[in-house]
């Protein structure tokens, strides 16, 4: 019994790390730009593809491949605001956007997924584990690969939070999230901050994709189920609240892991949505409230 519990807990925590990378990036983009990036999962997939290209095709060491994949995804993410979000914002002016941003990122998602399909084909690409071997904990064992995912996620998120708390550009990002007019009055250029924020957010997703490539395999639609689940997580945590997204990621992942004791495993994926609906009905501002990017 204890072994199972421990195994579930480890599984939940590792998965939580992945969810957190994904959900925090999504929440960051929402908090700063007020845009929900439906295409977030495609950047996850892209991270996986870049990792495949680096590690399998170019035979780079795993670490270099993962880092390059994350950076590559972030660089591509730099294009999203100037090409798409920015022009729409300019055309809207002060008019309310309604569903338009959602539709725009939906179009981007469709476009990216099918482009990946065209460029790389639909088969599941295999990436070997970044690290091999298993950590023996006595009662149970954990693959180092899974620990790597968790460790890298924690490091990346810690770096992000530190950046937002102390670095001049991190403060600028928070300023734009809290009060864009005042941020401009400080001399902060909104467009550049938006561009950087999107790149950071999708870069995190790309990192997740690169880390998970050995576990999930790589194919164009690999990111979409995560995207939908991440929406639920972001709502549970409080939209735009990064700490909330972090917390909710682990709440959901642990709930999913432990749920196996009570319900058949195919129904695991429902949990995130059930939790989301419960939160919306009982505490709509989310666990930590719709605070802005703190």
């Amino acid at each position, binding site marked *: 019994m204890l072994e199972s519990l421990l195994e579930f807990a480890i599984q939940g925590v590792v998965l939580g790390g992945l969810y957190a990378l994904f959900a925090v990036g999504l929440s960051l983009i929402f908090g700063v730009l007020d845009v929900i990036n439906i295409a977030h999962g495609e950047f996850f997939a892209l991270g996986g593809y870049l990792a495949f290209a680096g590690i399998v095709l170019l035979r780079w060491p795993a670490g270099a491949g993962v880092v390059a994949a994350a950076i590559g995804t972030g660089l591509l993410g730099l294009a999203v605001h100037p090409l798409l979000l920015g022009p729409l914002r300019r055309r809207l002016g002060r008019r309310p956007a309604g569903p338009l941003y959602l539709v725009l990122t939906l179009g981007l998602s469709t476009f990216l997924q099918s482009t990946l399909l065209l460029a790389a084909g639909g088969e599941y690409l295999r990436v070997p584990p970044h690290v091999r071997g298993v950590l023996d904990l006595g009662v149970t064992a954990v693959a180092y690969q899974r620990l790597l995912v968790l460790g890298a996620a924690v490091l990346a998120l810690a770096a992000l939070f530190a950046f937002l708390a102390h670095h001049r550009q991190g*403060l600028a990002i928070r300023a734009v999230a809290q*009060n864009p007019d005042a941020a*401009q009055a400080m001399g902060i250029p909104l467009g550049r901050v938006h561009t950087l924020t999107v790149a950071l957010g999708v870069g995190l997703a790309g990192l997740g994709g690169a880390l998970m490539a050995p576990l999930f395999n790589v194919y164009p639609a690999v990111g979409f189920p995560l995207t939908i689940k991440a929406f639920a997580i972001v709502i549970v945590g409080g939209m735009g609240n990064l700490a909330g997204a972090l917390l909710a990621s682990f709440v959901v992942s642990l709930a999913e892991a432990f749920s196996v004791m009570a319900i058949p495993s195919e129904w695991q994926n429902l949990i995130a949505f059930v939790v989301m609906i419960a939160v919306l009905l009982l505490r709509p501002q989310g666990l930590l409230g719709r605070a802005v990017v703190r």
Partner: protein
Amino acid sequence: MLVVEGVRAGYGRLEILQGVSLTVEPGALVGLIGPNGAGKSTLLKTVFGYLRPGAGQILFEGRPVTGLRPDQARRRGLGYVAQDGGLFAEMTVHDNLVLGGYVLPSRRAVRAAIEAALERFPVLRDRRRQVAGSLSGGEQRILALARALVTRPRLLLVDEPSAALAPGMIDRVYDALVALHRTGLALLIVEQNVEAILGVAGRVFVLDLGRNAFDGTPAELRGSDRVRRLYLGEAVA
């Protein structure tokens, strides 16, 4: 220093400013008053770039700034303090000041500028690590001014510095404004509280329904019966 000529501006199809002109001499303290809806705040927002004028032009230090974005206007030497202070309520006093120094070239310059600001406004020193939203109304207004000072604009646009403040706080805020003015900073202050501004301004412009209604010294303003009847009556609120 600042020349506004024939500016028309508004929100969407609603035109508020219908050809307004105004000047601010270097180092001057100029007041902008008028009834509600006259367009005073709208004019400040247009000068700083939050709104694009439909017609007219705006020159700052001889160069056109019409249509610049607010962050660009900031880099040209204009500063802006919003009616509610425009603070980052969920950040600390310290972080707000750091952001005030966003356009400064180095961390050392930012630190020095923050030190200077805290020297001038020592009430903020104790509150440095406090979240800005938890300060009192008057302290928040002081923080907004201190923050504006960190980057040394050459002309500061201030929107209703006395709004929603108790009389004692209003005096402190105006003392701070006058202190800033004495360092050589030019000020264009929009005010509902006519008495407060008339006490310190060198020149006053009056707007009514989006047009110029009067300009002159406070003494000239008080001396004109017509103006007093129309506008100072409002002030005794």
